[in-house]
C-alpha cells in the first residue's frame, strides 16, 4: 500500500495588506510591498498558496540612535548621525525595500520633538526616499497621540503602516489612519486574546481588517523567543481555521530585541547571527514583516528567504 500523504486544507486565509502607494494610487512611492494572503501554514508550499514572501524593513530613527551597541553603529558609518542620509544609505546601498522609522526623538526623554517638527521630518523623508514607510511612535503614549496624527497627515495618501495601537490607547491612531488612508499596527503583549480583542475594537471603528497588521511582541533568541513563537503558531492556526479577527499578517521587531541581548555585545558575528536566527525562527512561526537593524543580518536573512522561495512562486 502506498503511503498516503497527510494534507491539511484550511478554510481560512490571512488577509492581504499593501504598504505604500504609487502615483496611480494617489501616493508618490516608487514601489509597494504586499504581505499576507497565505492559506497554508508557514513554508508548507504544497498545501496552499503562499503568495508573498516575508519582507525585511530596515529600522531607522529620526535622531542618531542613543543606546545601540558599537557593532551595530559601525555598520552604518557616519550616515547614522543624519537620519536622512541613513535612510538613503539603507535604500541605495543595502537595497531596503521599505523603511521603518521610529520617531524616538519625539520622546520626552530624547529631545521631545514637537508634532510640527515630526511631521516636517516625515515629509522630508518621503521626498528623499521612494520606498514605502512604516512609522512607529516613541512608546510614550501621551506624546504618540500628538505626533503620530501629525506624521499620518504629513504622509496622507502614501499608504504607510503606522503604530503601535495598544489595547488602552488605540482610538486616536485609528482615527488618523482612517482619515489619511494608512494601515495600522495592533500590538498585544504576547497574548492571543488581547490580539483578537484589539483587532475587533479597531475594526469596530471602521478600519477594515485588511488594514491591520499584528505585532505579537517578541523576545529575542534566548530571551523568551518561544513565547511569541507559540502565540504566533496558535494565532495562525486559528486564522487558517476561519477566525477572521486573527487573520492579520504579523510584524516582528527583530532588531530591537536581538540587539538588547548580552550576546549581541560579545562580538559582531554573535550579534549578527543572534538577529538573523531570531528572524528566521519567527519566519518559521509565521511572521510576514521583519524589522531589522544590522545590514549584514538583513542580507543573510534575505538569502535565506530566497532559498526558501526558490522555484516556489
Amino acid at each position, binding site marked *: 500500500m502506498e503511503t498516503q500523504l497527510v494534507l491539511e486544507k484550511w478554510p481560512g486565509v490571512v488577509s492581504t495588506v499593501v504598504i505604500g502607494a504609487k502615483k496611480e494610487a494617489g501616493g508618490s512611492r516608487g514601489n509597494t510591498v504586499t504581505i499576507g494572503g497565505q492559506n497554508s501554514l508557514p513554508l508548507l508550499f504544497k498545501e496552499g498558496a503562499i503568495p508573498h514572501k516575508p519582507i525585511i524593513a530596515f529600522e531607522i530613527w529620526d535622531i542618531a540612535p542613543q*543606546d545601540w551597541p558599537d557593532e551595530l553603529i559601525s555598520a552604518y558609518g557616519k550616515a547614522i548621525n543624519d537620519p536622512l542620509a541613513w535612510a538613503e544609505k539603507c535604500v541605495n546601498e543595502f537595497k531596503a525595500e521599505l523603511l521603518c522609522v521610529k520617531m524616538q526623538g519625539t520622546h520626552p526623554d530624547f529631545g521631545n520633538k514637537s508634532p510640527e517638527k515630526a511631521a516636517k521630518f516625515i515629509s522630508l523623508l518621503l521626498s528623499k526616499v521612494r520606498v514605502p514607510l512604516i512609522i512607529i511612535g516613541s512608546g510614550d503614549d501621551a506624546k504618540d497621540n500628538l505626533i503620530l496624527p501629525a506624521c499620518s497627515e504629513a504622509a496622507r495618501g502614501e499608504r504607510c503602516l503606522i503604530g503601535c495601537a495598544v489595547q488602552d490607547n488605540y482610538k486616536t491612531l485609528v482615527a488618523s489612519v482612517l482619515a489619511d488612508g494608512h494601515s495600522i499596527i495592533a500590538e498585544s503583549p504576547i497574548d492571543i486574546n488581547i490580539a483578537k480583542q484589539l483587532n475587533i475594537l479597531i475594526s469596530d471603528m471602521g478600519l477594515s481588517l485588511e488594514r491591520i497588521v499584528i505585532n505579537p511582541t517578541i523576545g529575542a*533568541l534566548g*530571551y523568551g*523567543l518561544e513565547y511569541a513563537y507559540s502565540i504566533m503558531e496558535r494565532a495562525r*492556526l486559528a486564522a487558517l481555521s476561519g477566525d477572521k479577527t486573527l487573520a492579520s499578517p504579523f510584524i516582528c521587531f527583530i532588531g530591537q530585541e536581538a540587539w*538588547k541581548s548580552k550576546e549581541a555585545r560579545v562580538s559582531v558575528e554573535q550579534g549578527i547571527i543572534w538577529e538573523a536566527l531570531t528572524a528566521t525562527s519567527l519566519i518559521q512561526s509565521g511572521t510576514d514583516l521583519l524589522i531589522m537593524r544590522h545590514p549584514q543580518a538583513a542580507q543573510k536573512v534575505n538569502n535565506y528567504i530566497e*532559498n526558501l522561495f526558490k522555484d516556489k512562486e
Partner: protein
Amino acid sequence: MALSGLDIYKLLPKTNCRQCGFATCLAFAMQLAKKTVAIEKCPFISPEAKSILEAQALPAIKLITLGSQESKFDIGNETVMFRHEEKFRNPAGVGFIIEDGLSDTEIRERLRKINQLKFERVGQQLSVNLVALKQNKDASRYLEAVKLLLDNTTLPMMLMSKDLAALKQAVIISQERKPLLYSAQQENFAQIGALAKEFQLPLVVMAQDIDQLRRLTKELNGLGVNELILDTGIKPLADKIWDLTQLRRQALKRSNRALGYPTLAIVEQTDPYLEAMEAGAYIAKYAGLVLIKGWSSWEVLSILTLRQNIYTDPQKPLQIDPKLYSVGQVNRDSPVLVTTNFSLSYYTVLGEVEASKIPAYILSVDTQGMSVLTAWAAEKFNAEAITKSLETCGVKEVIRHKDLIIPGYVAMISGDLQDQSGFRIIVGPKEAAGIPAFLKKLN
C-alpha cells in the same frame, strides 16, 4: 491514535469472568485505556487483540538512544505537532560532520574545539551531542580517522561510509561507543542491516521519497533491525521542511509504524549564518538529529539556544528558587535589585549585574515562574508580595541601607511599596540592558 476504553472493550472476550480482577470486561478495558494495568491479566484475550493492544501502547515515534555511557542521549518519543499542544520532549541532537580527508592535526584540532562547545544559559547546561565521520578516502585512512575520534572525543559517533568492508572494520574497533551507522539504502540495506543487527547498533535509513523510506524500514524490521533513524537526503530547505513535517504527521496522525522513528537532517551550507538558520529551521520543525560542519562557538551557541527555546516546556516556565542571591564581593552598602523567580528574568538581571562589575544583591520574589509584567498583572509582583519577600529573605540583616531597586516596568507600585515595606524605592531601567549604566550612576 490512542484507543478509547470502548474501542478496547470491543476487542475483549466480553464474558465478564472476573479472572483479571475486575468485575466486568468493560471495567478492565477502561483501566487498559489509562495504561494502569497489563494486558496479560486477561488470560482469554485473542492473539490478534493482544497484538493490536500492544502496538497501541508503544510510542508513535520510537525512542532511540545514541551513544553509550555518560554522553549518550535520547531522541524521538515525540507526541505533538506544535509545542503549545503539550511540549517537545527530547531535544534534537546537534552533531558535526568531519571528513577523513583532513590531516591528523586538523582532525585533532577540530575535535578539541568541538569538545569545548559547552555553554551555560538560564541555569541550564547546553552541549553538543555527536561527531559524524565521513569517508572520502580509502579504508585504511578511514580506520585511522576512526581511531583519532576514539582517542580525542567522548562524544557519541556516527560512521558515514559507502564501503561496507571499511564500515565493518570501523564498527569492530568502535563498537563500545555504539556508533550510529549511515546509511541503509535500496541497494545495500540487507548487508548494512545485518551489520547493525550483529553489533546491535542504530542505523540511518535513507531514501529521497517517503514511500520508498517506508518500504525500506519494513524490510529492515523484517530482518530484525528496529533501531532506526529516517533521512530523506539533502534537498532544498522548503522541501526538507515538508518531508520532516510529513514524517511527523505520518507517525502521529496515521500511526504509520514504519515511519514512527526520529529523523535526521544534514545541513549543506558553507556560510555559517546560513548554516545556523537552516539548522534552526530543522530543530523547530521536527528533526531528531541535525548535522552541521561549522564549529565556531558563536554559531553553535545560537543553534543550541534556539533548541533550548523550542524544547522548553510551555506549561512549566523555568523557575529558580525564590530567595536572596548575592553577586560578587557584596558588603553592607551593596545595592539590592528585586525581580521575579522566572529564570529568564533572574538570569538576565544576573548577567547585567555581573557585567557591571558592581557587587549587588538580587532578590528573587516567588511569582511562580511568571515574568515581571505578567506577575504584576496577576498580583504576584505587587507591593504586598515584594514586602513579604523582603521580610523573610534576610536582606535586612546583611545591609545597612534601606534602598530597593525595582524594574522600570513596575514603576507604578513605587508608592505602595514604599509605604508597606519602609524601603526607599528607586525605579530602575525598563530593560535589563540598562542595568550596568544605572548601577554605575548610582554609585
